[in-house]
């Protein structure tokens, strides 16, 4: 009797301890991303390796990143968050954080420290642009041009103002159908100094000035709204030059072998990264945290650069990027001679106002 009692007590105790110690983790994880080559790089660089370590984990992809903010808001209103991890650009992350839809986190707790021992906070540095944002990569919006359409006698376009120079470089341009980036480039080419661009753009006169500059090429612009548009327009010879994400141009040049060149000048850096939706239950949150720690460590982010020409967001990952990819990275010193960083604060404030003016201008 006594013996069994002891046995029972000890098993009961150990059972309690087991429950308390091993964190309960959900085995299903829904990851929201962009689809295409980018999602593939994530799959290869960290989702598949993670699943090798944890074969019980089942990952479901949802290619909804471009409408993640609206969908997440709708889910939140409905009180049913079905996503565990959402890949968004930085400006969306800031908005999600502002709206209370994304979870704030502590970088040094959640993220692994760098391979060289630097703390996560220092390793990611300024790129943690919001308390909710876990950056993965740095990409840039820059121009590509058809090398076979460069007019005879003219040099290949190498600086941003070539976009506005219809005399030397006639032909159509592809620009994104939104004010962001276009307004900055226009002011830059209208003689505004780089460090004054946002001060000028904050004034109604400055906005008029930028639109007036854009007006000079308006008839020659095809406005794009999906990232795949410009590569397609370039490949078809519909436009002479166009802005798009550097990774898209990389695949046009390197994988499809189209006669397209990169301009890099005045490229605008932006970030892509994760947010964790607010309101996950304990088990799902534990799984996401476990995955994030793995997926954003130094090696994994460097691995991602093997599959797509975007720079890892960690300083400590940079040396691990394969040599042959380095030249295609927006952050490579040869490419990063003249760069902009997307001004999140400015656009959060001025987006509605300038967008109304920009749309009115477009509709004219």
């Amino acid at each position, binding site marked *: 009797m006594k013996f069994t009692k002891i046995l029972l007590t000890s098993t009961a105790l150990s059972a309690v301890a087991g429950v308390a110690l091993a964190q309960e983790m959900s085995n299903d994880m829904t990851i929201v991303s962009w689809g295409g080559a980018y999602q593939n790089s994530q799959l290869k660089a960290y989702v598949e390796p993670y699943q090798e370590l944890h074969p019980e984990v089942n990952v479901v992809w949802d290619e909804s990143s471009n409408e993640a903010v609206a969908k997440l808001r709708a889910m939140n209103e409905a009180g049913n968050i079905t996503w565990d991890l959402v890949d968004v650009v930085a400006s969306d992350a800031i908005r999600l954080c*502002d709206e209370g839809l994304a979870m704030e986190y502590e970088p040094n707790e959640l993220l692994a420290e760098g391979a060289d021992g630097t703390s996560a906070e220092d390793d990611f540095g300024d790129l943690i642009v919001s308390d909710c944002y876990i950056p993965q990569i740095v990409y840039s919006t820059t121009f590509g041009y058809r090398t076979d359409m460069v007019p005879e006698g003219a040099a290949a376009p190498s600086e941003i103002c070539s976009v506005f120079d219809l005399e030397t470089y006639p032909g159509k341009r592809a620009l994104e*159908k939104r004010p962001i980036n276009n307004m900055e480039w226009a002011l830059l080419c209208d003689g505004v100094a780089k460090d004054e661009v946002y001060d000028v753009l904050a004034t109604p006169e400055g906005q008029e000035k930028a639109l007036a500059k854009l007006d000079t090429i308006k008839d020659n612009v095809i406005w794009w709204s999906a990232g795949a548009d410009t590569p397609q327009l370039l490949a078809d010879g519909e436009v002479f030059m166009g802005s798009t994400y550097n990774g898209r141009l990389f695949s046009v040049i390197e994988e499809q072998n189209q006669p397209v060149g990169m301009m890099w000048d005045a490229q605008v850096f932006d970030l892509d990264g994760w947010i964790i939706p607010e309101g996950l239950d304990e088990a799902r949150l534990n799984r996401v945290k476990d995955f994030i720690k793995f997926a954003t460590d130094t090696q994994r982010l460097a691995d991602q650069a093997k599959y797509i020409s975007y720079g890892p967001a960690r300083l400590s990952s940079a040396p691990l990027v394969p040599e042959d990819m380095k030249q295609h990275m927006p952050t490579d010193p040869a490419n990063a001679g003249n760069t902009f960083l997307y001004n999140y604060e400015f656009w959060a404030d001025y987006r509605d106002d300038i967008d109304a003016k920009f749309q009115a201008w477009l509709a004219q």
Partner: protein
Amino acid sequence: MSDVTETIPQDSPEQGRKKSDGKIRAADGTSLKRSLNRALRRQKLRALILIAPLLIFVLVTFIAPIADMLFRSVENQIVAQTLPRTTDALADWEAASGQAPGAPVYKALYEDIFIAQERKLHTRLGSRLNYELTGASSLFRKSGRGVGDMGEVYQDQFEDFDDFWKMGENWNAFLGSDEWLAEIQAWDKASGDDQPAFEMRDGMEELFPQTAAKYEIFADFVQYEDEDNLYKEDPWALIYSSFYDDLTGPTATQIAAYDGPAAAQIKAATAAAADFETVDYAAAFADVDKDWAETPIWETIQTYSGPFTNGYFLNAVDMQKSPDGAELRPENQRVYGTLFLRTLFMSLMITGSCILLGYPVAWLLANLPARTANLLMILVLLPFWTSLLVRTSAWKVMLQQQGVINDTLVWLGIVDNFNRLALINNQTGTIIAMTHILLPFMILPLYSVMATIPPAFLRAAKSLGATNWTAFWRVYFPQSVPGIGAGSILVFILSIGYYITPEIVGGTTGTFISNRIAYHISSSLNWGLAAALGAILLAVVLALYWAYDKIVGIDNVKLGG
């Protein structure tokens, strides 16, 4: 010969018996009308129960979202909910004075933003107000960080004065009721029981009105939003500033007579508080951002402090609120009027081209032998079986300047190689692609109406001497008009709300109002404006439907025999 009018069947003889009052009665003497009603009601009820699941489904899935949309377009509770004290305090302020509001408003703003930033609601309000005033977004984000510093001025002084005030337990012992204190001390989180809800000690609300009110909010937040143990939780800086206000405020004399828990500490703190450094909230906010010292943000808060607003609707018709009432927006911000007109105009064009192209096809369908007609019908329906995106993208390949159509025209020598036609990224592109996509919606009702027109009508017309054209125009066409009506309504209403195709092939001049709605839904997150635009679109459609009914008559719409 003489018997011309035919015998029309007589009404069946009265079934009931006539009573003296002349009313027809059923066999049991009750009014016939009533017993008929009763019999019918039972039938109707049974029918209603049968369709109830579907009815509920329709109500929930169709009516509720529309109602929700209409509500969103005027709903504006976020301002008053997030800044309740500020909007109250601001009620008397005159925007016309050109002066920033007085100190009480800033103090109210401090309290509101403090609570809001704890709940992470201030940035949401910032985004909301940024639709009306540029800069509000960052203003609220900055202020959320700033209010902490303001409160800490008092917190630090109290804590430096006496460590007693550092501890959450001490505050609870002083403000909480004895029963609650007993319960919370006995409560164990691991037990799984609910945390006992905070209860204020009697008399605290009168004695420390500010502190008590804020502490209630704090307690509620800690217990139900953070789900932490309130007993151990150190209070917000806001509690300290309110405590200071109470100690130096109108109830100071009563407080001096207080002899409850922590009476000694309170007495000492009261004495010390007289010498405390104070915070000028107006200056502090101006320090956070100079915008707080100016009138526009206050005007905006005051204008949008009501629970409902017509601001979204004004915005949707290119107007804005101003101190003098509604006024048109500056010219360089007007966009929706143009878009609405363009949407209507292009939808009409698309409907027109669908009629032109669809009519002959529907005629063929209705008049070819069954086998050929079936084959043709498959061709008509084929577009339905391919993805909308694929079809639209195919048009891109066809229509672009280096595309199939231009290449062909250049090859044929009709178009000069350097002046290729712009068929895409403009209105032409939208009209072509949408006509193609919506054509089946015109053909199908037309076909089903035409199929019911017997060929004998055309033969009759011809036998009466009409040429082919006259027979068609005077006899066939008028009978197919209900099909055109049905098809047109379908195509028009579908096209007025389309956005994917215009987005892809419309460029800047070929986009619709729906593209802006989609933008506000998914990019700018201004759902209120999107809802207002949607509501206007709905109203326009209903108005057009009404006009159609008045002019053509809705009886003249047929989807089939």
